[in-house]
């Protein structure tokens, strides 16, 4: 218990629960730890942090424990947890908020593969306005994704005419980039907290 | 018009009713009329000058009408709301009155004027009025003009006033209330003011000072507004008959909008719809309460 108390994050002026509540509009204290969310979670067998763990750790201000790479980022956003929660908590939305907190990089890091995938994906969208799948595969591999995992299948994908070889750029690219920049600015502001 | 007259004649000759209450041509425009004989039915008219809310004649304060027994009344859609109010508040037994609904596309502000109905002359309450006929009526006759789309001038004035600082509103109403001579015409003409003994006439205790100065006038108009909250049918009669030209419609309409916004209530011509004051919801908004 001593170490537990010691490791609690007292440095920030705003407790995690309050911060999450501000971001989600939901009160993490609503969770009564019945575990129904985790019972239905498809990743419960793999992740180190099940939805009810996440709710508990948020309520107990344990950002340190939430940073586990095999935790939040394994969430598939299937929302089974939220849809079955008897008490109207929204673990899915809570985890969204936590990932957003961590995405700033200050408090913890998502696993490399997953973060590389998201980064590559969003980079494609920022560059073209739409996803350029070929570009995503290339950039993901270069950006730190498992190098050979999908190389064997890519040719067969091409053979089925599924992958376009050239990106399509939307006309409103300026607007798309403005969206990205504005959201980045908000994220930077959040990081400052 | 023929339809109306024939119906009135039939009701009178068959003895269904002893009188028909409607409008006739007067020396200075349209005026309310009591027709008691079948032949008299030909006097009846209905057009855009038939401004008056005849429902106030049904009020039990008018015993001479009560003596006539069962009567028929020519009914504009807006008057239907007043009749519904009187039925709702047990002042008029529904079975005692035959309602001849007339389809209506709006009336003018002044019944004495010979102006035609136009955007310039139409009564403010008709702007945006969605009702072309009253659902309460037993018979419905005539044809209706297309009506006038909003917006209501009073609503605009209310917004204008509300946007001003409180002291300017105060000054505005002081100037208006000072003019009131407490003739109580607003009370007499109002179909929903039917008490035998008005609060304003009660002396022990005297809540409303009787001399016509702004303070007593304030109390009177506050009381009137509160008593009509959720009951006012917006017939505009109080403002029309005010000899001093006080814009009473601004107050009643303002309260009507408050009731509409807070309690989602609009005056209805269905007597079964309860008025919003006298009922409540447990989750009524209470943002003003600490």
């Amino acid at each position, binding site marked *: 218990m001593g170490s537990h108390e010691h490791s609690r994050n007292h440095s920030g002026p705003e407790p995690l629960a309050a911060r999450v509540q501000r971001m989600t509009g939901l009160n993490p204290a609503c969770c009564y730890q019945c575990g129904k969310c985790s019972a239905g979670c498809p990743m419960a067998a793999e992740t180190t942090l099940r939805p009810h763990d996440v709710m508990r750790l948020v309520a107990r201000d344990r950002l340190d424990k939430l940073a586990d790479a095999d935790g939040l980022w394994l969430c598939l956003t299937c929302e089974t947890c939220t849809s079955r929660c008897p008490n109207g908590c929204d673990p899915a939305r809570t985890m969204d908020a936590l990932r957003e907190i961590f995405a700033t990089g200050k408090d913890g890091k998502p696993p490399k593969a997953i973060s590389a995938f998201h980064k590559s994906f969003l980079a494609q969208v920022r560059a073209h306005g739409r996803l350029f799948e070929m570009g995503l595969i290339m950039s993901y591999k270069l950006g730190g994704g498992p190098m050979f995992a999908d190389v064997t299948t890519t040719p067969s994908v091409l053979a089925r005419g599924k992958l376009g070889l050239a990106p399509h750029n939307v006309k409103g690219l300026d607007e798309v980039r403005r969206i990205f920049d504005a959201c980045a600015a908000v994220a930077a502001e959040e990081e400052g907290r | 018009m023929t339809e109306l007259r024939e119906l009135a004649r039939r009701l009178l000759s068959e003895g269904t009713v002893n009188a028909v209450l409607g409008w006739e041509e007067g020396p200075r425009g349209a005026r309310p009329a009591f027709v008691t004989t079948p032949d008299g039915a030909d006097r009846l008219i209905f057009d855009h000058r038939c401004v008056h809310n005849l429902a106030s004649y049904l009020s039990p304060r008018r015993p001479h009408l009560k003596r006539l027994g069962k009567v028929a009344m020519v009914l504009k859609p807006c008057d239907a709301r007043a009749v519904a109010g009187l039925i709702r508040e047990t002042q008029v037994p529904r079975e005692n009155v035959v309602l001849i609904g007339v389809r209506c596309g709006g009336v003018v502000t002044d019944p004495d004027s010979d102006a035609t109905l136009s955007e310039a002359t139409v009564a403010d309450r008709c702007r945006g009025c969605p009702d072309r006929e009253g659902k309460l009526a037993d018979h419905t006759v005539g044809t209706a003009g297309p009506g006038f789309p909003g917006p209501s001038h009073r609503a605009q004035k209310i917004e204008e006033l509300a946007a001003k600082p409180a002291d*300017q509103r*105060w000054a*505005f109403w002081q100037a208006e209330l000072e003019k009131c001579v407490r003739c109580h015409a607003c009370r007499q003409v109002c179909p929903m003011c039917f008490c035998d003994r008005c609060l304003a006439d009660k002396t022990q205790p005297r809540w409303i000072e009787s001399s016509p100065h702004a303070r007593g006038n*304030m109390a009177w108009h506050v009381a009137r507004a*509160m008593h009509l909250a959720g009951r006012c049918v917006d017939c505009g009669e109080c403002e029309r008959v005010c000899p001093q030209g006080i814009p009473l419609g601004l107050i009643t309409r303002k*309260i009507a909008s408050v009731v509409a916004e807070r309690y989602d209530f609009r005056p209805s011509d269905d007597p079964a719809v309860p008025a919003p004051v006298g009922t409540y919801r*447990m989750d009524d908004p209470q943002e003003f*309460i600490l």
Partner: protein
Amino acid sequence: MDSTTPATAGGFEPRITAFVCNWCTYTGADLAGTSRLQMASNVRIIRLPCTGRIDPMFITKAFERGADGIIVSGCHPADCHYNAGNYHARRRFAIFRELMDFLGVDPSRITFSWVSASEGAKWRDVVNDAVTRVRALGPFTAYRNMVVVQATAPKSSSPEHAGEGEGLPMQSLAADGVAPGASKEVTA
């Protein structure tokens, strides 16, 4: 804010009449006493059985008789000793408050609150806050002096307006056709 000279406003102590229900707020005020919670002495309580008994006329009469502010307080929703009196009062005063506001009475002169029998501290806060607020607004002479026909606007803070009335706004409205007829220019 009222049309009083700054000199009188300095030492001004508002008179506040409170209409409270017997079961919750009156008892809550009793509890404040039993707990020796100190508060401003400007409030005079009139005890009613229920907020449902409180008529808007009480408030206009109190203003006429010189009250600068009003408190109306009763049981919280669902706590009414008489089941529903407070719900009826809530509708009545929601409308009344908007009416007074529309007529130019600053709504912050009238405080509405739910204070339960256990909320002695809340009663103290309601009292102190109301006194502070009404003190800042100044005396409500505008209301009680209405009997003397006056052209002075109640809340002109700028001295040049005092005594000459709010001619401008009235005229501008009159010009719009809402308020025909000129206002009487009689000074108090």
